[in-house]
């Protein structure tokens, strides 16, 4: 209880509250713009957190995370184009409502459903993460190594259909993490005579380049689009309580589905919203009407995708496993703030973690308030021409990477990462595994080497049932996950040919 009281004291200060407000507005706008999404929003904002204190920086990112997921529903409902993949299922009933002249009602359902989903998952995060972390405290280097092996298998799930390329990108990320001074021997690795590389590659410039600049290059080179037409009146109208009570089962189920799927590594909000929508289609009160403009469809999708936010943070904070690209970026942000997510997080930085929980609650309410009040303004922004918008994003990405360390070298790293980001997108190589590898690389190597020292260079001892049963279980789950992913991949390759 003391922790929560302290956390309230930390967050209810002008700086974190302003950060939440700015993050909410920014996330809402970027989330609503088709194709940009949560990762890009957080990547752009990440460098700004360096000049902030820990709590304000984390509050800013959490607010962006929540509101960008919700923001995707605005364009899904208004222009039949989900701003983020997470809101793809919202299109199915949201846009038909707009066509029927009920855009304001659809936005009302989506906004309230997002709030409910977000709050539910924040409660789960608050109670589940410390329990998981307590269990993980028993982990030594070998168990941690096994855990990271398992975490790395999420690369296969974020790379469905391109598993080999995804694994390659993961290895590339792990390799990039070895650039710079080796912590054990003090030798400088892969600096190629460039002094700035002796300290290693900074995460932010690589991340901003791969995600933000690479995305901009790719979108501008793919096609130039004209702003979409908004088909009906835009506003916000909350349905009467009676209407909500008729659909309460779907709300509860969707919140549970979203939170649970969020906790699973490598699944993400898009999966959650479709699973939840499918469940509503199977068992919802108005299941026959789903797909024709029925609010239950909007509720199912929006409750679930926002419930993922808190769920995804459970493994990220408690055991240091980022479940998806967004949480990988969030984890990177925490590391750069001097906070190492994982087994000791709740011991070493309990005040900051609980402040993050409180910030997540406030961010959800801020998302609701701004979502309800800004529909008209967002609609105007949706009309901005893509060349103008993306040019401004480029300037923000460049200046953001400079702001981290004040070195032009980092801006060049962003530029090169941006070119690689573009090439990767063109070659259908997923970029998220590079970041996952880059974030997990240092602890992966450290624990492998420590484990080998402990076992006197006997890697076989890592799999000892008697000495390391937890590690063995984690290795088995890793092997099964990889086998399942490989089998799914082979099946997906054979199916089109059949």
């Amino acid at each position, binding site marked *: 209880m003391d922790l929560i009281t302290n956390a309230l004291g930390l967050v209810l200060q002008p700086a974190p509250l302003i950060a939440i407000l700015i993050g909410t507005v920014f996330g809402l706008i970027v989330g609503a713009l088709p194709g940009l999404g949560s990762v890009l929003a957080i990547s752009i904002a990440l460098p700004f957190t360096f000049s902030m204190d820990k709590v304000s920086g984390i509050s800013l990112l959490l607010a962006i995370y929540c509101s960008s997921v919700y923001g995707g529903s605005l364009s899904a409902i208004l222009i039949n184009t989900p701003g983020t993949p997470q809101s793809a299922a919202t299109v199915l009933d949201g846009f038909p409502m707009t066509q029927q002249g009920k855009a304001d009602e659809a936005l009302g359902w989506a906004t309230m459903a997002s709030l409910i989903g977000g709050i539910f998952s924040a409660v789960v995060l608050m109670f589940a993460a410390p329990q998981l972390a307590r269990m993980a405290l028993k982990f030594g280097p070998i168990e941690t190594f096994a855990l990271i092996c398992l975490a790395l298998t999420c690369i296969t799930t974020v790379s469905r259909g391109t598993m080999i390329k995804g694994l390659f990108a993961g290895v590339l990320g792990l390799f990039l993490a070895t650039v710079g001074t080796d912590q054990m021997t003090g030798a400088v690795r892969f600096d190629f005579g460039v002094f700035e590389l002796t300290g290693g590659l900074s995460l932010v410039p690589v991340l901003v380049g791969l995600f933000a600049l690479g995305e901009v290059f790719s979108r501008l080179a793919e096609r130039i689009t004209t702003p979409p037409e908004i088909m009906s009146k835009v506003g916000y109208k909350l349905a009467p309580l009676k209407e909500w009570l008729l659909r309460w089962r779907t709300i509860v189920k969707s919140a549970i589905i979203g939170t649970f799927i969020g906790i699973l590594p490598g699944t993400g909000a898009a999966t959650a919203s479709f699973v939840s929508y499918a469940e509503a289609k199977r068992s919802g009160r108005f299941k026959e009407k789903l797909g024709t403009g029925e609010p239950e469809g909007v509720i199912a999708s929006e409750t679930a995708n926002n419930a993922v936010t808190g769920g995804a943070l459970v493994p990220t904070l408690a055991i240091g496993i980022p479940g998806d690209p967004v949480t990988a970026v969030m984890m990177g942000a925490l590391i750069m703030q001097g906070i190492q997510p994982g087994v000791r997080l709740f011991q070493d930085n309990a005040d900051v973690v609980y402040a993050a929980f409180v910030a997540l609650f406030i961010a959800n309410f801020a998302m609701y308030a701004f979502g309800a009040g800004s529909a008209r303004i967002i609609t105007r922004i949706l009309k901005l021409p893509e060349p103008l918008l993306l040019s401004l994003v480029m300037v923000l990405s460049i200046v953001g990477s400079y702001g981290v360390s004040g070195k032009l070298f980092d801006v060049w790293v962003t530029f090169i990462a941006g070119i690689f980001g573009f090439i990767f997108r063109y070659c259908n190589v997923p970029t998220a595994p590079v970041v996952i590898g880059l974030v997990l690389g240092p602890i992966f190597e450290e624990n492998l*080497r420590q484990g080998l020292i402990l076992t006197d260079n006997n890697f076989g001892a890592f799999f000892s049932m008697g000495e390391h049963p937890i590690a063995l279980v984690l290795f088995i789950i890793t092997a099964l996950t990889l086998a399942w992913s490989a089998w799914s991949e082979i099946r997906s390759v054979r199916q089109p040919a059949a």
Partner: protein
Amino acid sequence: MSKGLRDVLFSLAMLLAAGALWLEMQKPQYEGSGPFGFGPIFFPQILLTLWVILAVLMLIRAFAVWREPAPDMAWWVFIGLAVATGLYIYLMGQIGFALSSIVFLAVVIPALGYRHPIVVPLAVVLFPLITWYAFVYLLGIPLPTSPWFARF
């Protein structure tokens, strides 16, 4: 270009990169086994092995999609943007953030096809200035300055 050719080129480029990294690892600075028998390239060597295996698998897989067309891409847009961005970063070091951003936006926005007579000039001038002000005065992050002004 077909997807197969694209993937072959990518795989070969990655194999070449692996070769370059292997050559780098042969340098004297990486010699020695380090404490407890693990030298500085112990872990990178494992990764490089995986790198080569996966690059070869990508190469083999490329032949399965040999005839499928790769997505259309306006390469000239990408090359133009990359050159413009590179020059922008270079200019930033020479004439400061605000002025280089104004030049960059003034070139890139119209070149990408948006030429509104009022919005473009406003965006070109106001956006860099507001960003500069936010960084320097609100966030306290100094940005590159020009040789002509102290803070601009």
